[in-house]
């Protein structure tokens, strides 16, 4: 019974996550409170851990909550349930897409939405940048952090640095400059 509840809850969460990110956390909280799976305090803890660990936040949260509610089986079930709507919707969209993608009208629509992605990700850059450059105190800019961000930015753009190596090196540098 609890496994079925986990499955339906996280399927619903995956299904109604459109546009991504933090809107979904509110939905998860609602489900958790509805079933009394954990306290609001525990939920805040889990969101923090889901953000710190690698991987999509929704998937991390599903795995964690599934594990806490029903062990390994719960973790696997909640994770499958949260990705299933994605798989289904992509398969449906892809079939139409493969058929119509070379038509002129569809091409024009895509040309219309490509700039949106640049704007979207630009907005995300502002959000992440704000959070990461004010590490020590809100409102104050930490000069070594700013310098580090600039060096990495230029390296990525002009030296084609590998993003994975950049992440590892920055984690190590963080150990020294944030002491």
């Amino acid at each position, binding site marked *: 019974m609890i496994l079925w509840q986990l499955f339906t809850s996280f399927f619903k969460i995956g299904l109604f996550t459109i546009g991504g990110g933090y*809107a979904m956390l509110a939905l998860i909280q609602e489900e958790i409170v509805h079933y009394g799976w954990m306290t609001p305090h525990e939920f805040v803890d889990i969101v923090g851990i889901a953000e710190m660990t690698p991987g999509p936040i929704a998937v991390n949260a599903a795995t964690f909550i599934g594990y806490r509610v029903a062990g390994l089986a719960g973790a696997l079930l909640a994770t499958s349930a949260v990705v299933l709507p994605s798989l289904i919707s992509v398969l449906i969209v892809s079939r139409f897409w493969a058929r119509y993608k070379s038509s002129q009208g569809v091409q024009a629509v895509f040309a219309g939405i490509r700039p949106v992605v640049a*704007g979207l990700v630009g907005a995300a850059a502002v959000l992440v940048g704000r959070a990461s450059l004010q590490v020590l105190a809100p409102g104050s800019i930490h000069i070594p952090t700013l310098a580090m*961000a600039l060096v990495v930015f230029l390296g990525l753009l002009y030296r084609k640095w590998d993003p994975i190596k950049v992440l590892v090196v920055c984690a190590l540098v963080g150990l020294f400059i944030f002491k």
Partner: protein
Amino acid sequence: MPITLDLAWTFFKMGLFTFGGGYAMLPLLQREVVDNKGWATEEQLLDYYAIGQSTPGIIAVNTASFVGYFQAGIIGAIAATLGLVLPSIIIILLVASILRQYMDLAVLQHAFAGVRVAVSALVTASVYRLGKAGIVDSFSLVWTIITFVCIAFLNISPLWIVLASFVLGNIIQSVRTKAS
């Protein structure tokens, strides 16, 4: 390496190194999927991303499924998705069962502060590439700026912006067809 295994392994790496949500995955996708593997062009990646935003589901999973589907059909979509979520499952299970008490350590917090700086530089660098691929005329430049302001400063959901762009793209196309 068979394509399904290659998809799973490539997206496994992406799941392992994506910190801070779907947007942070984009620079890794550009590097692996566009530059290294040639599974999509920069423009196609933009399309997957825009559609991933406006269809139900987690953006990172949607994008992985699109890339997988167009390489190897349904099996490819499943392989890419499994690869993407596997690091999450492994790491979260470890954290939830035995590593919980270490998550508050100062050392880890400092390392994560460093990672966040890298993520912001990565995301900013990918905006530059996206702009080069997506901004082709004065209209797309204006539309990019409007999108940016609406989402960054007016808190409007990306969903509405993408839908509005679909409609606008259609209108512009029909106007151009009539004119020519």
